[in-house]
């Protein structure tokens, strides 16, 4: 069952579009259907990092994939770029299938997908001047060195760096400046979709927020769409318009960011959000504190994958896998999703 086939009744009176509408996929820039990413497919113990995930990234939006390490969020990002093995399912960008391409990374680039990684230190060649790194994606298309250099300088200005940075080397830059350079490089081929894979996670909070402001400005100026992979809920709350929560290779909840973050329906989403340190001064007790740590992707539990950690788990959760269905204006895969809100209110009073 794909994550976009709601079993419940979608509520039609919502303002705007429901996730189910998006499932129709007319205006989705990136469509992922029943994607399974498997490492070591021919080995004795293949690891299914992503299992049957369907997602839509609509043009002009920012979809955030959140979850703990091992949830499969980075595997999805890598699969979209052609850097992770796809066992089954499809990835369609702008109507073009990317999974069947002969050279998947090249196909992704040609269809307008670029990625910005977490660590800007290892993402830049230390021996190259900054402008050369930024201009690298233009090598095939722009022959004259002077023009490539000029284009790189313009890109640097667009990400808030002075032209003088073009002649410097990565070691002369701070972490935030380096990340601006990798963003400039991602913009060089004029992409439509930029994947931000933990792009601000390694930065200091003060610098991180400046990069978030830049990314948001660029999104409007360049008409970009973002797929944001992050474990940083602060960045997600600020940037995302839509959120998909992943656990052990599956999506457990997805919908509009404001709805999912303010009123999570899945106990895991609640636990994830309640762990975020805010400045309330006290440790806030999440209603659904998870037990132990994320399970092993190679040996996922039967039934609901989250049930061994879930304080709300009942017998049914151990035997029957919950399907994605519409609950309170978002899709979620939890047998007890209707009750989470009342259990939470009960625990508070």
């Amino acid at each position, binding site marked *: 069952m794909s994550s976009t086939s709601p079993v419940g009744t979608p509520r039609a009176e919502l303002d705007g579009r429901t996730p189910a509408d998006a499932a129709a996929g007319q205006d989705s820039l990136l469509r992922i259907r029943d994607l399974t990413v498997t490492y070591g497919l021919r080995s004795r113990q293949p690891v299914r990092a992503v299992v049957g995930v369907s997602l839509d990234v609509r043009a002009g939006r920012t979809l955030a994939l959140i979850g*703990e*390490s091992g949830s499969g969020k980075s595997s999805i990002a890598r699969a979209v770029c052609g850097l992770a093995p796809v066992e089954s399912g499809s990835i369609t960008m702008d109507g073009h299938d990317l999974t069947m391409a002969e050279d998947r990374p090249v196909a992704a680039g040609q269809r307008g997908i670029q990625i910005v990684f977490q660590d800007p230190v290892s993402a830049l060649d230390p021996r190259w001047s900054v402008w050369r790194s930024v201009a690298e994606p233009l090598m095939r298309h722009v022959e004259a060195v002077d023009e490539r250099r000029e284009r790189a300088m313009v890109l640097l200005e667009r990400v808030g760096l002075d032209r003088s940075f073009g002649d410097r080397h990565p070691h002369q830059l*701070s*972490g*935030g*400046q380096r990340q601006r350079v990798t963003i400039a490089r991602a913009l060089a081929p004029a992409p439509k979709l930029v994947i931000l894979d933990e792009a601000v996670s390694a930065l*200091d*909070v*003060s*610098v*991180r*927020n*400046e*990069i*978030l*402001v830049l990314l*948001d400005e660029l999104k*409007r100026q360049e008409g970009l769409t973002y797929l944001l992979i992050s*474990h*940083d*809920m*602060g*960045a997600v*709350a*600020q*940037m*995302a*318009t839509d959120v998909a929560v992943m656990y052990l290779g599956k999506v457990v909840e997805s919908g509009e*960011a*404001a709805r999912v*973050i*303010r009123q999570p329906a899945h106990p895991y989403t609640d*636990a*994830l*959000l309640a*762990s*975020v*340190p*805010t*400045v*309330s*001064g*006290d*440790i806030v007790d999440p209603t659904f504190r*998870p037990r*132990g*740590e*994320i399970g092993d992707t190679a040996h996922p539990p039967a039934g609901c994958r989250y049930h061994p950690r879930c304080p709300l788990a009942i017998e049914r959760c151990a035997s029957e896998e919950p399907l994605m269905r519409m609950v309170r204006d978002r899709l979620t895969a939890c047998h007890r999703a209707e009750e989470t809100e009342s259990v939470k209110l009960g625990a508070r009073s």
Partner: protein
Amino acid sequence: MTAHLAISNLHVTLDRQGVAVPVIDDLSLEIQEGEIVGMVGESGSGKTMTALAVMQLLPRRARATGSILLAGQELLDLPESEMRQVRGARVGMVFQEPVAALNPVFTVGSQLLAAINAHKDLSRGDARARALELLQNVGLPEPELRLRQYPHHLSGGMCQRVMIAMALASGARLLIADEPTTSLDVTIQDEIVRLIRRLAVESGISVLFISHDLGLVSRLCHRVAVVYAGQVVETGPTRTLLESPLHPYTQALLRCVPNLHEVGVVHRGIPGTPPLPGSLPPGCRFRPRCEFATDACQAPQLLEPMAEDHLARCVRALELAGRRTPAPTYQRQGEAS
């Protein structure tokens, strides 16, 4: 009551081609028994240098002056042979990368036993019993199994629990935790923070908790010291600091803490970057990035008491405290939150 750890007027300089470059400037900090004190600041602000100064593990070209008293004993002029008796036995330290801090080719058990035997001479059976007790105390499930396992069998969160067990193996009463949760997931980070708090409450150990995350620090610490460019710019009880921050830098850091109630609002960070050691601006070190800077800020600023138990290093602190500035936010276009 004398503090368990009392750092006073600590200066650390690094020798750069014969020139002494100051990296920590007149830093004072006290931690009582059972108290958790947070030290917050950006990369390069001198947080880790302070921790290394307490452990006397500063790089060779560094010079520390001032005073660091551990339970009344001066650490700065202690010879290395005696300092070895302090490290591990009286002060334990955990670092950011728990997986990298463990040796991949030895079992968890052999590394933990080495930490136990470093300062005590226990029989094999006693040492093993102590190891199991330590692992239980840090909340590691199946301790018997963990002793036989190698670090790669454990998750990052489990490795950090092992590191905390090792840091406390010889009965250290002061734990220095340098960004102990930075590489961990939020759910696991939360568990580790709870563990540290429980250890402080149950066994009365003191904790110096170093982090760049003011939100995290406020969850855990009794008191907070905000450091900027090698200086403490504000210090006080956590609640005071959160409710009435006086220094513009603290206020700016607070704005950067995630607020999950405001979905879709991008908060401005702090423009610019912290100054590098050796090229500090004259006067207030935060001045080039400060939105409230005036001529008065060109004079060096002193860390002065502004209210009871609340110190700040800003000439305009009290004047600005009255008018709380609305956080400069930035509404995403086309999104009404």
